[in-house]
């Protein structure tokens, strides 16, 4: 006891010596008062991240089995409800595969930030799965997908040209997110995630409006975030396009009954090609070559356009913003209302230092925006190129890039199912299996 007191006194002395702010000395208590401890509640243990990863792997594995063997929409739906509860409402949306791409970008370009193995696995594993089995992640392992899938009420068909045009946005968003993360500016995917506020039951007003808006829109335009915003979906659509296996609509042979095409709320089922669509091969390849040759033109044009507007993008960084503000309005120095300016003045950083830091950030943006612009050009060019690729189809097939493997079409496909009593004497369905 005496030793403890002595130790405390000694440490107390060191504390006083090390702190310059100690205006009033620590009192010598005479009543045996013991200093309370400052409580420090522990964060969630690191091991729990591995539990999350295990849950992700289990969900992905189980859903793959459901899509390929069990072929059950209902089970896929319930798995996605589980994901919504676990990753959405219980884990409150962090960490997720969609945002993880920013962690990787920051880890690669920052000197101090490192990525944890679980975050990397969250990013890579669903992509690898999609390379073999399609967008299993979207079907049931993504809480954002799950919440949207539950509100699909009366989906409308969207014109193909509009789909293709809006479908370019996820790639642009991905490029922007990587640029902002790599420059250490912001994680825009997390910041503008419309559903995370619902998982947490708390968000800023404009994000609440955005979330509610997306949910309402999602009743008619099925899974709007997944199709026209999600940057991770953009990556998955590439890997899934070349996947080794993919959900098949029918368990047997397609009878071209068209039922599946009506069942898909995402317009992700390609119809059989009609005879009048077929053009001579020479014309096809001619167009293909022209569009392919145009790729560098697009790449350079957009790269130049985006890089010349890099200073607008750079303004998202607080240093650049503050430097711009103070250079444009030097009188702001006297503005006692502006917290940012006053804190900067009090911090002891000089204007030269600020300008130097801001120009370093701007240089990063200048370099990065060349890549961003080139990437956007490539996306536009490939979208155009895809228009002239003609593929002959004789049956209804899931579009491998766009299909979320949700399994609705499997439920609708009549092949192999017992016929309705009305058609009990029609043997065609049973025979095709």
């Amino acid at each position: 006891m005496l030793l403890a007191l002595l130790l405390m006194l000694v440490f107390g002395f060191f504390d006083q010596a090390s702190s310059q702010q100690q205006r009033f000395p620590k009192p010598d208590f005479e009543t045996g008062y013991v200093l309370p401890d400052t409580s420090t509640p522990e964060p969630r243990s690191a091991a729990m991240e591995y539990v999350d990863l295990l849950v992700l792997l289990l969900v992905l594995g189980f859903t793959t089995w459901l899509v390929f063997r069990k072929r059950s929409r209902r089970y896929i739906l319930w798995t996605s409800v589980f994901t919504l509860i676990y990753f959405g409402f219980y884990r409150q949306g962090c960490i997720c595969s969609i945002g993880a791409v920013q962690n990787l970008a920051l880890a690669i370009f920052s000197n101090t930030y490192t990525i944890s193995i679980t975050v990397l696995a969250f990013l890579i594993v669903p992509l690898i799965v999609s390379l073999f089995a399609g967008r299993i992640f979207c079907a049931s392992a993504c809480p954002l997908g799950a919440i949207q899938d539950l509100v699909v009420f009366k989906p409308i068909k969207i014109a193909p040209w509009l789909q293709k045009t809006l479908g370019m946005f996820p790639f642009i968003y991905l490029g922007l997110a990587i640029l902002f993360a790599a420059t250490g500016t912001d994680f825009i995917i997390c910041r503008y995630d419309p559903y995370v506020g619902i998982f947490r039951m708390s968000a800023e007003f404009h994000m609440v409006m955005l979330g509610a808006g997306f949910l309402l829109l999602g009743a008619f335009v099925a899974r709007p975030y997944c199709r026209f915003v999600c940057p991770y979906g953009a990556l998955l659509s590439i890997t899934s396009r070349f996947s080794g296996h993919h959900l098949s609509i029918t368990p047997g042979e397609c009878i071209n009954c068209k039922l599946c095409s009506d069942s898909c709320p995402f317009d992700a089922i390609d119809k059989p090609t009609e005879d009048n669509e077929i053009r001579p091969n020479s014309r096809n390849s001619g167009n293909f070559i022209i569009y392919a040759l145009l790729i560098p033109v697009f790449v350079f044009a957009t790269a130049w356009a985006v890089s010349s507007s890099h200073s607008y993008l750079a303004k998202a960084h607080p240093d650049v913003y503050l430097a711009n503000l103070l250079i444009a309005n030097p009188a702001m120095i006297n503005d006692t209302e502006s917290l940012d300016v006053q804190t900067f003045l009090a911090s002891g950083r000089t204007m030269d230092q600020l300008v130097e830091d801001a120009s370093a950030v701007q240089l990063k943006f200048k370099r990065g925006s060349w890549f961003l612009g080139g990437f956007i050009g490539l996306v536009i060019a490939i979208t155009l190129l895809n228009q002239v690729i003609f593929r002959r189809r004789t049956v209804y097939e899931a579009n491998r890039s766009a299909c979320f493997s949700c399994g609705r079409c499997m439920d609708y496909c009549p092949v192999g199912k017992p016929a309705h009593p009305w058609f009990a004497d029609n043997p065609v369905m049973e025979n095709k299996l």
Partner: protein
Amino acid sequence: MSKELTRREFIKVCARASLGLALTGLAGYAITRIGTDQWVWQIDPYKCTSCGRCATHCVQNPSAVKCVHAYPLCGYCDLCGGYLKPGHLDRNTAAENQLCPTAALERRYIEEPYYEYKIIEELCIGCARCVEGCAAFGNGSLHLQIRHNLCHNCNQCAIARVCPSNAIIRVPLSEPYIIKGSHEG
């Protein structure tokens, strides 16, 4: 027809292989950037300027940022700059004289002339009014910390984005707090 199909299959296999290789390469490169520890958000109390944005910009309401008390630094004063409003007329503990807008700072008599100041965490909103007062008139023993039992550990902290003094930083999970006096500042 069959020749065309084989060509398509060939292209697909090639694309799949190159995408697979690209992913493995990316993962391989990322492994060089893997840290042994995970990150959590914390406030560096030595950088904090008590601007009050922690109370308003956290994704949670009330904020996961709370005031903590580093007791070894406290002077246990009767006239506490973190507890009482400056320029109050009567020196008593009536509500109008208290700095804390939610009465989250509790004062307890220890012995003449010393008082202990304790934060009632359920009431604290992290507005840093007491922190400001304590730093201005006292020892600076009251300071803000992100409480990890409350913090969601968002991928990007919403407060970090608006913090004017860049005081919100990523710290290793193994050392999740920066309590004044117990770290080398």
